[in-house]
């Protein structure tokens, strides 16, 4: 009886002891313009409930940046005669357009497996749906294996393209309860709405998490060009011809004397 009382009291107390984490972005608006060659993004945050988190051992932080859900297609190159040509298309449904994690040490050392799976911590735990466009294999089990293969290949390709990355580092514990995470957005960062999440761990236990939103926008002349080309393709085409005619005429004028 007494034990039960103590135990229940302890459980009730537990939330009070839980530390909390909160983040803010230096800028929640990233603009991709003609000269965009990547951007550095700093997440600032504070931890409450833990005395001097930097010093105390076992405090870990993981950040996850997720780009807008994007439809990709992946295909395997097959040898047909002497040449390599793309095979059937596998649609990758709603995969994050960008997926970057930062942690002060390897995520596998920080978070237990169920957490990694639950929160998709790290590229190994991303859920990728690689549904087959056409039936390539006769039975369902085999096609499941097949889809898994394409999903794995997709993550590898996205990592090579710099769109998916797990990075150890970038997490700096500042004075007292403050910390900062430096994230590098690559030049091929897609536009759209992003979610930023941070997870606070101590000795393998999730103590708190927080989320923020980020928007990546195309700005400047090339955004207008893109919009025009996709919303009014015929106008864009005619405009391209007019510009080309004019440019050709200018070129002829420029070199007439020489």
């Amino acid at each position, binding site marked *: 009886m007494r034990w039960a009382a103590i135990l229940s009291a302890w459980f009730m107390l537990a939330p009070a002891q839980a530390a909390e984490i909160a983040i803010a972005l230096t800028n929640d608006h990233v603009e991709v*313009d*003609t*000269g*965009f*060659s990547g951007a550095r993004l700093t997440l600032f945050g504070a931890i409450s409930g833990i005395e001097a988190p930097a010093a105390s051992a076992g405090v870990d932080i993981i950040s996850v940046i997720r780009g*807008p859900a*994007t439809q*990709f*297609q*992946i*295909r*395997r*190159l097959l*040898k047909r005669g*002497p*040449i*390599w*040509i*793309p095979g059937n*298309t596998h649609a*990758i449904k709603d995969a994050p*357009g960008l997926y970057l994690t930062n942690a002060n040490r390897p995520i596998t050392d920080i978070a237990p497996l169920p957490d990694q799976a639950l929160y998709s911590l790290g590229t190994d735990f991303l859920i990728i749906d690689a549904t087959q466009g056409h039936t390539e294999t006769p039975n369902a089990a085999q096609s499941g294996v097949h889809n898994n293969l*394409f999903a794995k*290949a*997709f993550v*590898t*390709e*996205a990592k*090579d*393209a710099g769109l998916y990355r797990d990075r150890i580092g970038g997490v700096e514990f500042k004075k007292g309860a403050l910390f900062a995470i430096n994230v590098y957005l690559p*030049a*091929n960062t*897609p*536009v*759209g709405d992003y979610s930023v999440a941070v997870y606070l761990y101590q000795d393998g236990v999730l103590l708190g998490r927080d989320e923020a939103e980020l928007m990546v926008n195309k700005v400047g002349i*090339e*955004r207008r*060009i*893109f919009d025009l*080309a*996709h919303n009014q*393709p*015929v106008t*864009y*085409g*005619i*405009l*391209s*011809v007019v*510009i*080309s*005619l004019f*440019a*050709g*005429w200018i*070129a*002829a004028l*420029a*070199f007439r004397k*020489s």
Partner: protein
Amino acid sequence: MLIYLPIAEIPVDPFVILFMGAVVGFLSGMFGVGGGFLMTPLLIFYGIPPAIAVGTQSSQIVALSVSGVLVHLKRKTVDFTMGGFLVAGGSVGVVVGIFIFRYFRAMGQIETFISLAYIIFLGLIGSLMMVESVRTLLRAPDAPRPRRKHRSVEWMAVMPFAMRFRRSQIYISPIPPIILGFFVGVLSAIMGVGGGFIMIPVMLYILKMPTNVVIGTSLFQIIFVTAIATVLHAAANQTVDIVLSLLLLSGGVIGAQIGARAGRRLKGEQLRALLALIVLGVCARLVFGLVTPPASPFIVVGGP
């Protein structure tokens, strides 16, 4: 410094693009060819998606041809009647070409299709030019040149609706020009070329047009056909990158001026052998790209 191409959606080094434009411009100035058939493969080698390379090339060729045709208009070396029939055939050809392009794009095989089309055409034309120029170079300089036989093409004589083309001073049926225009239009749409390298020999050797009107007339046709191709590529495939096009053009016009000067110092036969070598080299590089096992067996496309 990098510039983000709005339609290709990739960052590129503008100086590399300017340089590529200048190199192809140099070659086209030196050899008197359009250079589209060299530019599209170069863009592909640089990493521009083939479909965008082709669409963008159409708009660039419009600009190059306009700057080229102005001189011919002044010299009155454009046969408008002939040009009109070529454009008529070309307009239909472009539409057919865009349909073929879209079909292969929907199948996801447009990259392979463009590469194969280039390999066939560059291989064929490069070999023909090489054989021709080696033969000429090997011939003793004193030996008399074999006389070209002046036989008229018989199948042309039996074609109906024969009419007079005043500026070309020929009397032929308009059907062969329409067919030629059609064929060049198809090529233009699927390969992003002007098609002068096909059109000019046909005009000279089959239609028997005089040399002085051939270039102006072909440029006249190319302007219209590539303009239509540009609008259709933009409308149907969204593959015209005007920023890339203008960068290429800037490099191209400068390169062409230097090339034209360099070309005057070389002999015709040497020039042709050199161009044949370049064409075969580009062809070999495309073949290499298709037959070598890929670094990664998977390709990913897509975006938001």
